[in-house]
């Protein structure tokens, strides 16, 4: 028995495949890496944390990493954090940096948000299934992001429309307000104007401070709950309008459960293929603990960390926590 034999190889296969085919993901090096924070930037309500992680393989859009501060991971609210936390790989730079977009919602994100240049970070990844590539059926692509969920979509935008952020310098809009395109007369955007190589980007936020995160998305149509930026209402309003222009589209979405569930059911109704990037509490991120499950359509569970986070909408009867079913 050779130590290099692949477990996923079929029984009886003659020559083991040295690297199992992984069309849906970039494989992670086995073991966590010590990365060094290079910058921690404020983007409205979020932080963009850049770390030098030169050994990181190029991730597929939608993949994530498990992250922990190397020092003082613990001792926060409720004597936590203890486990690493999952974050979408938001951006990468040719200089070997990786960026994570963070929202401070608890002891783990709080600790990460306070890191500064020179602090060290444990990084395991890239993990999970990313967005499929090339897009299905040659249809035009609509990205739908909600809040911090935009972090799962930024690499898709980058791939089509490289941001200045891809180089050495941080993305524009840091600290300032984003420059969302002006909505059309209807209050909804004239979708065509937003597209760049058949990529339409829609993003919804709670407030103007959160909407500044859209600076990572290039030319995006914005909706805010409070109407402070772009369309006053939901990002699904923008999606409705966009699909009204034609359903020859594929949707890729990430955001809070209620938004994802709305996107799922709209796409189901309109028969538009959709990929959803899910969230779940995770302990390991690599399929070991069985803690991150969501119900699969037809019974059983998916592990979000290995069977997702990006799943075909058809795999779910509803998005858990999304108020569906």
């Amino acid at each position, binding site marked *: 028995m050779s130590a290099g034999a692949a477990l996923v190889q079929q029984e009886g296969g003659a020559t083991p495949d040295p690297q199992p085919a992984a069309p849906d*993901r970039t494989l992670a090096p086995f073991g966590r890496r010590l990365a060094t924070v290079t910058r921690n930037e404020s983007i409205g309500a979020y932080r963009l944390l850049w770390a030098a992680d030169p050994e990181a393989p190029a991730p597929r859009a939608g993949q994530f990493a498990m992250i922990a501060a190397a020092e003082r991971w613990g001792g926060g609210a409720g004597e936590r954090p203890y486990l690493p936390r999952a974050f979408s790989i938001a951006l990468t730079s040719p200089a070997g940096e990786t960026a994570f977009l963070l929202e401070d919602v608890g002891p783990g994100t709080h600790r990460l948000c306070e890191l500064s240049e020179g602090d060290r970070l444990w990084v395991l990844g890239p993990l999970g299934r990313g967005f499929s590539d090339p897009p299905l059926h040659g249809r035009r692509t609509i990205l739908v992001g909600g809040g911090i969920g935009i972090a799962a979509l930024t690499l898709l935008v980058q791939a089509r429309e490289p941001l200045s952020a891809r180089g050495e310098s941080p993305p524009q809009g840091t600290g300032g307000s984003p420059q969302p395109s002006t909505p059309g007369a209807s209050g909804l955007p004239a979708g065509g104007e937003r597209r760049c190589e058949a990529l339409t980007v829609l993003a919804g936020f709670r407030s103007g401070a959160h909407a500044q995160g859209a600076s990572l998305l290039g030319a995006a149509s914005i909706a805010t709950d409070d109407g402070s930026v772009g369309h006053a209402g939901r990002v699904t309003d923008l999606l409705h309008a966009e699909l009204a222009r034609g359903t020859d589209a594929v949707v890729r979405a990430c955001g809070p459960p209620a938004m994802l569930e709305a996107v799922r059911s709209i796409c189901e109704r309109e028969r538009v293929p959709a990929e959803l990037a899910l969230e779940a509490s995770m302990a390991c991120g690599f399929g070991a603990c069985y803690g991150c499950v969501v119900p699969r359509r037809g019974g059983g569970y998916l592990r979000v960390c290995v069977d997702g986070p990006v799943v075909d909408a058809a795999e779910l009867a509803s998005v858990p926590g999304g108020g569906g079913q």
Partner: protein
Amino acid sequence: MSVELCGMQLAHPVINGSGTFDAIAAERVFGTELIELFPFSAYVSKTITLRAREGNPPPRLWEAPAGLINSIGLPNRGLDAYLAEDLPRLARLPVPLITNVMGSTAEELAELAGACETRPQIAAIELNVSCPNVKTGLDIGSDPEQLHGVTRAVRRRTGKPLIVKLTPNAADVPACAQAAQDGGADAVSLINTLRAAALRPGDRRPWLGGGTGGLSGPAIRAVALAQVAAVAARVSIPIVGMGGIQCAEHAREMIAAGADIVAVGTESFRDPTVAAQIAAQLREPVASP
């Protein structure tokens, strides 16, 4: 640093805790590097039951101070699918395979052991006796008498090394270890998770889909050390010590308390190669004692 456990020759004294490492999933994530750098000196499967189980409804995890509460509910595809589909894959791992099984009666456990007996790929059997007895609601493993009976029933069905994984939720863990030894176990392993609960912030109703869960990680290490020491003082068979081990020093402590080898569970979630690092450090000479 090579060690022997119940006749199995292990390259080093660090294995995984059952249910805390899925080698098949890990290969999807890490590719063949997982196999080249396989961190454990034996691979313990997650708990296998006669029939397939989907596990508990989510949420299944809760982070506790210096610990993790899980309520996974032993999802597995059942004995037949395990033997037919997982075993051939797992047999390609470069280490001996220990299959962990659970049943709620002596008959079920004996059937599971009997099926494993015929498979040369399986080097040893670990009995998870933390399962609640359907009648009393208590763990079968917390009652020395029941545990003795269950171990004997399994022993009759297998010549393979038999490890009994004790429950920590017992008044007298050494008496349980003694019962396992008397019933014919070749080794005992401990500790499993401590029964624990978590409430949802806001409405303070049970957070875990399974109602209650089990606490693991650094929070339980001192409890594990005490139980291992008490069991070592009582039985002569080898002990697999686990509970909150994070580094070589913790492994050395567990061994000093009486364990023959150690297992790493929750810490692998934070660092999947930690077992290999511990093994490497255990090879280095220590200044003291």
